[in-house]
């Protein structure tokens, strides 16, 4: 990123905070919203300092387990569905049956089914991440050009070669898109799931709501946002490495 871009981005955020501050202090908006100064004070409180690390680690644990499982199931399944037509015919009705159910709707199911809060949250993020990864992976494998396959076959490529050397690299951009969307949806879901009792950032946010501490609610919300941002940046970095060949092909 160019230096000027970074400066503009930082200034943009600074401008927003100043605007927010004056809107609250001058009572332009008729709501009891805390000012950025109030929110910043939360970050120095002993409550925050004592609880933040544990909450983050707990939420990240849910993500690692749930998202990891989604990745391990959705990518291979998507590969087989996208590559072998009969498998797609067989599996896709089941997928279409469950896909329209919003992940949050699974919370009640999970709370009754699992006794462990880690399992509840991990399950919800699994549901949230699974379908975007699956559908994008299927798409990636289904859209492999016959021309590439023919070139490889003319060289005597085996079925395994076609899958690993042609279809997989072709599908990789789609898989990564699915991973990005899946992680975003999953992160939303995990915070929501934690509001029902699993320890983590979502749980703390809802506790702060019970005691009407809006400053703290917002302070933890920004932590959730910052972590989501970091994960997305991490994936973008990974994507730029893996899809180096796309440089100059897409606007980026």
């Amino acid at each position: 990123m160019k230096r000027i871009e970074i400066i503009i981005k930082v200034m943009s955020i600074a401008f927003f905070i100043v605007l927010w501050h004056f809107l609250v202090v001058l009572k332009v908006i008729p709501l009891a919203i805390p000012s950025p100064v109030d929110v910043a004070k939360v970050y120095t409180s002993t409550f925050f300092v004592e609880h933040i690390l544990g909450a983050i680690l707990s939420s990240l644990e849910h993500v690692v387990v749930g998202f990891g499982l989604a990745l391990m199931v959705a990518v291979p399944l998507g590969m087989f569905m996208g590559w072998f037509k009969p498998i797609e015919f067989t599996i896709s009705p089941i997928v279409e049956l469950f896909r329209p159910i919003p992940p949050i709707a699974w919370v009640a199911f999970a709370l009754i089914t699992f006794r462990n809060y880690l399992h509840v949250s991990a399950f919800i993020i699994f549901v949230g991440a699974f379908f975007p990864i699956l559908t994008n992976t299927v798409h990636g494998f289904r859209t492999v050009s016959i021309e590439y396959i023919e070139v490889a076959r003319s060289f005597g490529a085996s079925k395994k070669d076609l899958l690993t050397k042609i279809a997989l690299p072709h599908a990789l951009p789609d898989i990564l898109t699915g991973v990005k969307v899946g992680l975003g949806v999953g992160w939303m879901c995990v915070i929501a799931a934690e509001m029902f009792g699993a320890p983590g950032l979502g749980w703390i946010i809802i506790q702060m709501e019970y005691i009407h501490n809006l400053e703290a609610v917002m302070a933890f919300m920004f932590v959730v946002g910052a972590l989501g941002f970091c994960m997305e940046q991490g994936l973008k970095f990974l994507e730029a490495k893996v899809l180096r060949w796309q440089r100059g092909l897409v606007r980026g």
Partner: protein
Amino acid sequence: MVNLDKILVKELLKSFGNLKVLDNVTFSVKEGEFLCIVGPTGCGKTTLLKILANLIEADSGEVLINGSPPNPKLHKIGYVPQSISLMPWRNVYSNIKLGLELRGVKEAEIFRRVMEVINLVGLAGFENYFPHQLSLGMKARVAIARALVIDPDVMLMDEPLANLDWHSRSIMQSELLRLHEKAGKTTVYVTHNVEEALLLADRIVVLTSRPARVKTEIEVHFKKPRNRFEGDFVLLRKRIENLVKEEE
């Protein structure tokens, strides 16, 4: 050995459903010969070439390469598809090495042969470029290099220059002549451009409109490189163009 047929195509029949595409196609290609197949658009030229490349099966009839049916274990086929079809995630070097990689050739040997062919086709310095960074003419060179690098028994080319503008096309035509002279590969080259066929071919097979049959075969005796504006060349071109036109 001089008259041994490198490729023999005998009484090929092929239909897609009710659509009859090839009807009793028979011809042969001699060792080292550059054979052009011309015919009206949509007559089944590409289908014919894909059968030779063992990509689709004929309903009946026979294809023999070096006396046996096409088989990736026995024969090395240098196939250049109509759409060029370079893999966008592979750079020039990796695109060219595909055939060697699939045959399990060792990396050091791959490097030696790919670099040799890169120099041969005039792509030196472009090894690390990705396809989208290349001109159409360059892409055609990569596709030809990808076929040549496996040291093929036969080259099968499906209008590889179809999308090029006139200028790059005439450059690539001379390049194809140079490469054929140097590598001496038996070549079957499909085109609907009669002038191009006459510039390149030792012999031209003219196909009828669909279903394709061999309408006629014409030996081209002009010395290469040929002058496309020379009188006899133009006369023969007009004659063949009329043969094709009768079919359209």
